[in-house]
């Protein structure tokens, strides 16, 4: 199995042989930052294309087909357009908060993106509270959304931001609780260790029924956290024009847009890492030849395959369900998902003890 740490170790050694330690570290930091930002933007473009295609297919359309072969360059053209657009000055906004909000949202998203283990060596920060870090930093985005709604001087953005705040903070709970069941199973919060543990059975198989319940709850709650699909109340077009980012234009709107798409990817990536074995290939204990064949597929492909499967699930639900009302949304969280995930934690504890 080829792991990316070979490449990263080689670069590290190469830099250290020619440079002082401090300079080598500095260059590595810059490289990591550049690669991370590029990957972020490229992934967003791919996701926008994939989303438009899949949405079109669900509606029996073909989606973008004109720009480039199969419409592949459509999202690139959209990106160029959004970069060239004017930043419109809105009357009576709070200028500092208005500008800060877009940055807060995208910073939270990028920081979360950095902590995802793509492969053995493709992992920017790997420390012993990885899952905790992911949860903590990804919920920073709520602050940005609330600020955006508050500072825009517009009632629609205000309502959107308030709905978003209620929704994100509520669903954070069952999101965290369902991740907690998996942390109980693996006994660690370090993402690399969690992935290594799933060598022979992914957590969703290892944990049995409670892990499956936790996976479903996590998918629902995570889906709600990305403000999409049946839970897109904060930006419901038919009610609130565009919710909290109504007044934004140009690259500031682009930031919200990027963060929204990448949050979808990040939620899917966390689900992949914790439930579906991260970059681990599918191994079945006992079937040695099957495992050998699976090892030939590079781990990065495994990771992205599983992640895009989760993204597809999210889009599938999005085009199946109508939008929820705000009270139905909060009922679903506080009366169904949270009690279920609390019970599930007890169930998981019993499972660990008696299985």
């Amino acid at each position, binding site marked *: 199995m080829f792991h990316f740490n070979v490449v990263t170790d080689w670069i590290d050694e190469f830099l250290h042989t020619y440079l002082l330690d401090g300079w080598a570290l500095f260059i590595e930091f810059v490289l990591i930052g550049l690669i991370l930002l590029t990957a972020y933007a490229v992934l967003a473009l791919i996701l926008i294309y994939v989303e438009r295609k899949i949405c079109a297919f669900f509606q029996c*359309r073909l989606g973008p087909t004109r720009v480039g072969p199969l419409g592949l360059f459509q999202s690139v053209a959209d990106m160029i357009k959004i970069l060239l657009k004017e930043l419109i000055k809105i009357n009576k906004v709070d200028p500092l908060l208005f500008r800060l909000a877009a940055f807060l949202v995208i910073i939270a998203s990028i920081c979360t993106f950095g902590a995802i283990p793509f492969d053995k060596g493709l992992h920017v920060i790997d420390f012993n509270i990885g899952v905790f870090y992911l949860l903590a930093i990804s919920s920073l985005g709520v602050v940005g959304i609330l600020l955006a709604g508050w500072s825009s001087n517009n009632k629609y953005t205000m309502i959107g931001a308030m709905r978003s705040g209620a929704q994100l903070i509520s669903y954070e709970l069952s999101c965290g609780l369902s991740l907690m069941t998996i942390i109980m199973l693996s006994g660690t919060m370090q993402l690399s260790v969690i992935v290594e543990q799933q060598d022979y059975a992914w957590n969703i198989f290892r944990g049995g029924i409670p892990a499956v319940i936790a996976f479903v709850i996590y998918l629902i709650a995570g889906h709600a956290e990305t403000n999409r699909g049946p839970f897109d109340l904060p930006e419901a077009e038919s009610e609130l024009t565009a919710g909290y980012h109504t007044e934004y234009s140009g690259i500031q709107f682009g930031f919200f847009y990027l963060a929204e798409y990448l949050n979808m990817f990040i939620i899917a990536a966390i689900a992949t890492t914790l439930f579906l074995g991260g970059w681990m290939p599918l191994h079945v204990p006992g079937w040695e030849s099957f495992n050998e064949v699976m090892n030939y597929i590079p781990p990065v492909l495994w990771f992205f395959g599983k992640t895009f499967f989760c993204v597809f699930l999210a889009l599938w639900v999005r085009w199946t369900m109508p939008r929820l009302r705000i009270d139905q949304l909060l009922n679903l969280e506080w009366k169904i998902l949270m009690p279920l995930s609390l019970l599930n934690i007890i169930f998981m504890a019993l499972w660990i003890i008696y299985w």
Partner: protein
Amino acid sequence: MKMIDYIKNIALGIWRLMQGMYVTLLNFIRSKVTEQYPENRGKVFPHERMRGQLVMPHSEANQHKCTACGICEMNCPNGTIQIATKKELDEETGKEKKVLDKYIYDVGSCIFCALCTTSCPHGAITWSNNFEHAAFTRPKLYEQLNQEGSSLMKKQKTNS
């Protein structure tokens, strides 16, 4: 009892969710309805009852059925049809008779209501499927439906 209902509701909700997702998955797999028009030009076959353009069918002997009665012209709600007539000597009776000279049809103002074809007593005009009407100037939208030198189709004599 309430607890049982609660659990039942959750299970029912999941079942309904799966039912809905099954339906959308079928739509996802289904063949797509989008026509990529300029690429498949000539391969698009609209429904044969589609009203694309008014035409006057002519027989092999360059004969049409229009008697220039003018009912279509009167029925047309926005003056799309203009009929010009001329007098011509009938060989059998030796009298002068009104025949069709020019049947002018303007696609630009036609609303495709089909009042002309339904009211035509002889079935002289029908619809064709041609839908590519775009032109650069308005006069190009005017069209003469009867061909040059065409004449009225002789009535089929039936022995009764």
